[in-house]
């Protein structure tokens, strides 16, 4: 197992966001987290990346307990990529500088090498002509693709994607989803998403989160097509009503 979360608990004041959550992810596996807003998807991703501390339980990466307080969070984050719903590109840097910042400053790679690797990636995702543009000159879909490249150039063991398409209009969603689908196989991914069609296409396993736990998980066809739990069925029915499946 690459990632295991065991009995993870996280509270914000009185509200319990993760309530004894268990989840494990194999190498090269793609796991889609689905569930209503507030079910704990984003919080789980932030906890795995140690941006937020947990209140109880254990998270291991490559068998190492990363929730041990003696561990240096910076070392763990170097192995995990995180892509945000609102892109969070650095507005004062060009797209190229955004992408080469971590390789040169964190991983100590030579600037030329980092640059040519970044340009290769940008070409691969159709952004070669945007390398020297500032993020505010890019469309939302282009910004999100650049943000995904920024996470990928560090060759993370694990890529976390936090509702990466929910800030995009429908026409731009497609280009980001295509890019993620192309990454499947090389990269281990955990993605929180509201796009059920995408989860079905790209995920090896879908996990339905409810009230801070994984209520049901399995192959996409089973969880999305023939769920066992009444709560999952209810959630999917609402999604179908809203026309998102």
């Amino acid at each position, binding site marked *: 197992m690459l990632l295991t979360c065991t009995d993870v608990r996280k509270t914000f004041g009185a509200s319990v966001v993760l309530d004894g959550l268990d989840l494990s992810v194999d190498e090269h596996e793609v796991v889609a987290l689905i569930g209503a807003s507030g079910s704990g998807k984003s919080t789980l991703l*932030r906890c795995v990346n140690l941006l937020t501390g947990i209140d109880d339980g254990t998270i291991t990466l490559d068998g190492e307990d990363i929730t041990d307080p003696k561990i240096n969070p910076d070392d763990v984050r170097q192995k995990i990529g995180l892509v945000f719903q609102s892109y*969070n590109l*650095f507005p004062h840097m060009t797209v190229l500088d955004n992408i080469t910042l971590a390789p040169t400053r964190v991983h100590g790679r030579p600037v030329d090498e980092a640059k040519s690797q970044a340009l290769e990636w940008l070409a691969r995702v159709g952004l070669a002509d945007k390398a020297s543009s500032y993020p505010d000159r890019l469309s939302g879909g282009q910004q999100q693709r650049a943000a995904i490249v920024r996470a990928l150039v560090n060759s993370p063991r694990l890529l976390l994607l936090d509702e990466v398409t929910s800030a995009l209009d429908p026409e731009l969603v497609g280009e980001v989803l295509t890019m993620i689908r192309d990454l499947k196989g090389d990269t281990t991914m955990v993605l929180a998403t509201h796009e059920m069609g995408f989860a079905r296409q790209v995920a090896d396993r879908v996990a339905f989160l409810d009230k801070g736990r994984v209520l049901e998980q399995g192959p996409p066809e089973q969880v999305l097509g023939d769920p066992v739990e009444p709560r999952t069925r209810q959630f999917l029915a609402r999604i179908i009503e809203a026309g998102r499946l």
Partner: protein
Amino acid sequence: MTTDAYRPSDVQLGRTAFRKRQAVRSVLVAALSTAVLGTLLGVAVTSAPGWDRVKQSFFDFHNAKEFFPQILEGLWLNLRMLVFCAIAALALGLLIAVLRTLRGPVFFPVRAIATLYTYSFRGLPLIIVIYLFAFGVPGLRLQGTPSVTVLGGAAIVITYGAYLAEVFRAGIESVHPSQIAAARSLGLTYRQSMRHVVLPQAVRRVAPPLLNDTVALQKDVGLISLAGPIDAIRAAQIGVAQNANFTPYVIAGVLFVLLALPLIGVTDWVTLRAARRQNAGT
């Protein structure tokens, strides 16, 4: 393109002509109202019963000519003080602002000292700080005590550093936490995140207020004259005392305004540019 070249419609041509007439009218009206107000003010001042005496003691050509070189020479000291104090105060302000953001129990004393500093020196009148430094420090009779000019400059730097630190801190706090989250998620340390992500954005954002404080600093360096060095104000004061005529003060005042104009111009330009960037953002 195969279509005919665009030609404005008659309606649009009418609009353009109307706007042009309006623009000409606006300029004429503005010129007329300025002339009327200027004349009224001029008449009001020059027809005052004491105008002749005021003119003689504040706007006397011979006095102006006699003391202009000394005042200009003094202004050279002000200008050097301004450059030195501005750079030093900006550096000090940035340092204090960063110290105040440090987290963790180890840094408690550093944070406490930085906070105490910004609280006390923003409250303490600059004049008192100058007196304390220029007259208090030499009183210690330590070896290698710097000149009064340097001590007065240090007083200005320490006082302005406290204000600028708060401006920098406001800038640092205005950078959205998601930017730090993005930097940390890439594996950057806290220091790297500050250096490469937070500070560049913070400084850009607060450039206009920082420059505005520099304009204020520009005239406050004149307070150095209280400690003794002959700057433009002290030179004017000497002239005033010599001939019992206030004209040198007016000359010094005009020179200070001229000195400030470029800096004010730059401030306005930077502010405008910042506002445009903000509006152009997503």
